[in-house]
């Protein structure tokens, strides 16, 4: 990719930042929350995309890292009186360590076996959060200080989203990313051509684990109450996957576009069709899957509106 294209892409990102910085003081609390959660799902779907889109290891358990981040914030703010921003770093660190411990064995599995192992790991973490009452308050959950924090959390999520986008962009347009793609395409060939797949997969997995932890921590501080059922809810993983696939997995712009379109469509259908919003949302997804099976970016590539590949 030429320097001009990088400049154009960062120019688009700069415009997005300016808009997102200008918005919060001109919109109401509900709208601020919708945009904050949209940014959160951009973080989650881009992170999922690093291990599942670039590397081809489809994770059904990424909510685990999000939950770990949420609990790090909840526990440290409520029980230890930490400043909530500092807790995000702890959540990220714990997620990083957990990703290495879990990643080493589960990344030896492939396809559905990996997916199921990750689902099991996430469920296992939820169970730990439920039964380890001394640390997590168990099923009772943790209530955080009830203060107006919509601006703080909005801008914190904006920063985390920007970091995630920049890192994803670097991965997608580097030889590191190409090597992850090679593992996705054919791991045996990749190994035979000099790629240490164990190292690369683990690196990608750890990278994909740290941003959801930060997002989970911010989300915990925003919603003021966390419990194992909501913080380790499988639907969060499904949304990450759905948004990334809708936009076009294995690309940088795809998960961002997919999240902004799909999350906002979901909100609109929820507001317009409160009794049937899931049906309306479902119909929308079916139509997209039927006519754009490789997502928005795949559709754009097929139409010649976008270039094939990430590195040109």
């Amino acid at each position, binding site marked *: 990719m030429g320097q001009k294209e990088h400049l154009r892409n960062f120019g688009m990102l700069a415009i997005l930042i300016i808009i997102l910085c200008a918005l919060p003081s001109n919109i109401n609390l509900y709208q601020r929350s919708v945009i904050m959660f949209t940014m959160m799902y951009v973080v989650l779907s881009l992170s999922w995309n690093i291990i599942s889109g670039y590397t081809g290891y489809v994770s059904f358990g990424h909510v685990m890292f999000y939950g770990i981040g949420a609990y790090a914030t909840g526990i440290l703010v409520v029980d230890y009186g930490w400043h909530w921003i500092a807790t995000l770093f702890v959540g990220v660190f714990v997620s990083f360590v957990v990703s290495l411990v879990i990643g080493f064995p589960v990344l030896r599995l492939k396809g559905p076996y990996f997916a199921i192992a990750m689902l099991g790991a996430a469920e296992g973490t939820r169970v730990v959060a439920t039964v380890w009452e001394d640390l997590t308050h168990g099923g009772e959950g943790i209530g955080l200080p009830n203060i107006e924090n919509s601006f703080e959390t909005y801008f914190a999520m904006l920063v985390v989203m920007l970091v995630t986008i920049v890192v994803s962009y670097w991965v997608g347009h580097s030889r590191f990313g*190409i090597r992850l793609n090679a593992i996705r*395409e054919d791991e045996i*060939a990749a*190994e035979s*051509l000099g790629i240490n797949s164990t190292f690369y997969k683990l690196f990608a997995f750890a990278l994909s684990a740290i941003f959801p932890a930060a997002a989970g921590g911010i989300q915990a501080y925003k919603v003021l109450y966390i419990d194992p059922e909501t913080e380790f809810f499988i639907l969060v993983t499904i949304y990450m996957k759905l948004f990334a696939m809708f936009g076009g997995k294995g690309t940088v712009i795809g998960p961002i576009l997919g999240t902004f379109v799909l999350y906002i469509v979901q909100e609109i259908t929820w507001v317009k069709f409160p009794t049937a919003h899931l049906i309306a949302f479902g119909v929308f997804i079916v139509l997209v899957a039927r006519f754009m099976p490789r997502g928005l970016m795949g559709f754009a590539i097929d139409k010649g509106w976008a270039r*094939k590949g990430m590195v040109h």
Partner: protein
Amino acid sequence: MADMEIALDIQHLKKYFGGIKAVDGCTFQVPRGQISGLIGPNGSGKTTTFNLLTGVLEADSGEVIYNGENIVGLKPYEIFNRGISRTFQITRIYREMTVFENMLSASSMKMPVREARERAEQLMEFVTLTKLRGEYGGNLSYGQQKLLEFARALMTDPDLILLDEPAAGVNRTLLNNLLDHIHHLQEEQGKTILIVEHDMNVIMNHCEKVFVLDYGVKIAEGLPEDIQTNEDVIEAYFGHR
């Protein structure tokens, strides 16, 4: 072989799959700086031998000495990084990556990016794929995929190149092109090349030495013209006369 430098010394290599003796104590020496052929009837263990040499499969026993080191037990990427590259019987190009990305994927991370890009461009030109650099690997014809896989295997400038059936499914024009490239590598750059091939024209006209496997055992080796008249080889291919 006495006065010839050896690139790869294979000693008593064995690989069994349950009761099937895919490679059964195979021993031969690949001469350095030459094009050698590895032939044998279907199921004789040629591709399994390639997989053992490149670490895709782990040998049950035996040794493969390369530059004074036994490489049995090393991972495929470790063997690749020591200078042994390969292609596959059925092409294993990355179908949803562009030709250029396929090339870059095999570059060493130690090589600066600019240098890697230049080398990829040179090799694409070498195999006449420059015009297709932005096309997905999966959209190329089979012959072009073979060329891409061949060029990709050269990204790190390996010393020893293992080509598994380079002629299979490739039309005559492309094949001649590929063979010209192979000769160029051997003559101009002194590379060692070992070819598994069923096309006897390729083996007899382009290899300086031929090894013949049957049931996982080396049954003959020598010059192409000698192999053609070797009784054991004729029997392996056609049965008792």
